């Protein structure tokens, strides 16, 4: 009897992490925008004060600039981005047949550079890669996120989810501990959000520049004193994919502004 009760308790404890990591119901999903003060919101809302728009404009220039051994511009293959790129970012990371795995929008841009422009890849977090990514993602502003729908992505979404609930680092915290279980609370006075990936690349006032979702994830990992995954690593791509599938239905905001 006593033994049975002990087993029941153990079973309960073992089940707890999965219960806690149930995710956020569609109607309860809220972008980081909803957690910001009126001034930061106003900065995002007004294109003439949103610093991310400068990158979008740079991206537009790069879109039509011929480059690489093929001397082709993005526009030579894709035409007017306003129609050809609408909704694309809302589906990324997407499955790449050749690689047999998901690639991020930034990786797709570099695949196009390599395969179709015969140009060198742009480094992660370089101004040009951020500008092109922001320009392409901006064409999806207000489009609802649907990334992760492709059945071929299923194992990678699962991998991302496993990483999201994995405690890590010297502080032994998982993403889910903050962004599923404690959003709306305050970490040292600053609001914790649901960690929704709706606005990337986005302008963070703390960074004083535009940055990618991968940069954000790496700083959360560093924050819990974990060894951050490298840019472009399968783990970061899987996390990004899980975050996008977890944000399903939320509208894209690129370029967002965050504190």
């Amino acid at each position: 009897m006593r033994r049975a009760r002990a087993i029941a308790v153990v079973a309960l404890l073992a089940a707890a992490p999965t219960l806690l990591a149930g995710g956020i119901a569609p109607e309860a999903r809220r972008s980081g925008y909803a957690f910001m003060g009126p001034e930061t919101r106003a900065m995002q809302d007004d294109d003439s004060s949103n610093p991310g728009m400068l990158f979008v404009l740079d991206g537009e220039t790069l879109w039509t600039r011929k480059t690489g051994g093929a001397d082709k511009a993005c526009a030579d293959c894709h035409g007017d981005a306003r129609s050809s790129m609408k909704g694309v970012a809302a589906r990324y990371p997407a499955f790449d047949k050749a690689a047999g795995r998901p690639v991020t929008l930034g990786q797709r841009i570099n695949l196009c550079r390599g395969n179709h422009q015969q140009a060198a890849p742009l480094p992660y977090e370089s101004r040009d890669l951020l500008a092109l990514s922001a320009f392409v993602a901006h064409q999806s502003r207000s489009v609802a996120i649907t990334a992760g729908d492709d059945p071929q992505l299923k194992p990678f979404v699962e991998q991302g989810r496993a990483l999201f609930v994995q405690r890590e680092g010297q502080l032994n915290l998982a993403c889910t501990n903050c962004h599923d279980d404690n959003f709306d609370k305050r970490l040292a006075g600053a609001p914790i959000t649901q960690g929704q990936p709706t606005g990337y690349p986005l302008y963070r006032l703390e960074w004083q520049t535009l940055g990618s979702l991968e940069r954000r994830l790496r700083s959360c990992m560093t924050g819990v004193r974990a060894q951050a995954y490298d840019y472009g690593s399968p783990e970061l791509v899987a996390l990004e994919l899980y975050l996008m599938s977890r944000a399903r239905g939320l509208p894209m905001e690129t370029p967002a502004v965050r504190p």
Partner: protein
Amino acid sequence: MARALVHIAALIATSLACCAHAEEPAPFKIAANGIAESLTGSSGDAVKGRALVLARTTTCILCHSAPLPEARFQGDLAPDLAGAGNRWTVSQLRLRLVDASRFNPETIMPSYYRTDGLVRVGRNFAGKPILSAAEIEDIVAYLATLRD
């Protein structure tokens, strides 16, 4: 307003990411839901403990609030530390800091004097507990003074 937010964000970044120079944990004995004996063999300094709790690098007030009027940005992920000295014995407070998961296996409170069972610890922190034995004793001494 925006400036203040930048400031807070930067503080979080540095406070969470900075420095841990403590050495491998020394052995200790857990009994009756506590650690009765000081980790250093002597009692801590409550004044130093207060300063440690106030310092963001120890991470306490990222989650907790405490009766520290000079700390403008405190957390609300965890109970207010006011009155902790009434609710817990020194021995329990010591174990709570050493390994909070002994009280609640699902706790989000980090174990400050433990190096095993952790995943992907950053290169600069691997093999080191978050706090040293002396820092824990100072904080325990301070928490014991928090009586309503």
